[in-house]
């Protein structure tokens, strides 16, 4: 009997992180689907929903960011809220569920040059906490997972700036970037499992300790 046997999971956002989580959930016994859009019928049947919709940052100094960049970033937060609202009633009717948002530390540890992304990342915290407070009574937990992983973006940055990226990774407590399946997927599985039945409204860092140890990688400087 695995941790997610007989559970139905949906991962929205099929990047490296989303795919890693989906793979880990599948191995834990869940019936997993992965999508880039909301399918209302599928969402209603889910025990676990992973909301991984932040997208890539628009890079420019705040003074020259335009309205459209902010609108687009905040639309992603609205999309996250819509997905959660679509999922919650089914979870309530079945006596509980798990909502796991995927965000980024740019919401807390702000990097220059990515204003809309910082703003949207921080907005996810407010959204997550609101759902935790309102839906906890239904047995639905809502948490925000902030990963630091060995993604295509990190590898691309390393290809051009190997020294700075190695220094950056080496500063973290565990001195490595996370594997999207075993490390990030594992942390998501913890939140999706019975282990975390009473963990609600939390920001959980699957980052090898980066949040206590080191700055975030600024895509305006190193990931272009």
């Amino acid at each position, binding site marked *: 009997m695995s*941790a997610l046997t007989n559970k139905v999971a949906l991962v929205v956002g099929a990047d490296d992180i989303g795919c890693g989580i989906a793979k880990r959930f599948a191995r834990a016994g869940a019936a997993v689907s992965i999508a880039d859009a909301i399918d209302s019928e599928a969402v209603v049947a889910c025990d676990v929903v992973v909301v991984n919709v932040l997208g890539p940052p628009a890079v420019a100094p705040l003074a020259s960011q335009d309205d459209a960049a902010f609108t687009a970033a905040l639309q992603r937060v609205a999309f996250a809220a819509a997905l959660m609202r679509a999922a919650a009633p089914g979870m309530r009717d079945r006596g509980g569920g798990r909502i796991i948002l995927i965000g980024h530390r740019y919401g807390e540890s702000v990097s220059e040059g990515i204003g809309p992304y910082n703003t949207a990342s921080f907005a996810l915290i407010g959204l997550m*906490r609101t759902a*935790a*407070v*309102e839906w*906890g*009574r239904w*047995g639905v*937990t809502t948490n925000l997972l902030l990963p630091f992983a060995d993604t295509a973006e990190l590898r691309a940055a390393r290809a051009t700036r190997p020294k700075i990226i190695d220094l950056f990774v080496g500063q*973290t*407590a*565990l*001195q490595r970037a*996370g*594997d999207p399946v*075993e*490390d*990030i997927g*594992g*942390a998501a*599985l*913890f939140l999706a*499992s*019975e*282990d*975390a*039945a*009473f*963990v*609600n*409204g*939390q920001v*959980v*860092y*699957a*980052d*090898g*300790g980066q*949040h*206590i*140890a080191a700055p975030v990688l600024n895509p305006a400087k190193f990931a272009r």
Partner: protein
Amino acid sequence: MKRFEGKVAIVTGSTQGLGEGIATRFAREGARVVVNGRSATKGEAVLERLRRLGAEAIYVQADLSEKSRAQSVVDMALARFGRIDFLINNAQAQSAHVEAEKPETGAYFDETLRAGLYASLWTSQAAFPHLRAAGRGRIVNFASINAVFGAKYGAAYNVTKEAIQGLTRTLANEWGQYGITVNTVLPSGLSPSYTAFFEGDAKRAEASANAIPMRRHGRPEEDIGAAVAGLCSDDARFITGQALFVDGGQNLLGLPQLHGPGYDPHSKERRP
């Protein structure tokens, strides 16, 4: 195969309450468990319950405010089981509630810091060479919502709990290179001190459950024990330095300042 088959967990302060719940969870998942606390009567009772679950367990009577006793818990674990995988630093003596300006406050600092902060440091130091040699390990420390919000009349306890968070982050940064993760759990569950707070007052108990977004109290084994087990599992191998509230979301709503001065958590046991 159970998840913690072959593993060894030390759970300090596990002769009652949340500590017992954590020890029970680890035992149920197949770990061999070192039970610790000051009361031999309670310790033997917990041991008996764990053994009825089919678990291998020992009880080490020790007041961890003495460094040599903290060391002895680790020594006994190694002597009996030959390894240590998980160190759960749950023990914490509580002191009576008192206004910060009273002279007792300083004495209470000594007591709570030794029994919580120093105890966590000493057991961690004692376990460290073995965890490093194994190339992996898990340490879980304990902090408190009371400390995060500065609950009135609890200066000594609050200071100790916040200091433990500093210790957690430092150990996480220093020992991460050896594959050791160090995290803090901030639990809200039905511990003896928590139930004493509304003992015999059903309305107060219900009101306090309703102040938690999940509308229920944390269960020592199924909620707090499970989360600690999760942090010790392979799933959480990339989580370190984290402060994790296991409280159903209680911390999001803040902490009502309901404590009054003069409450003594030891009144039934130690100060009749």
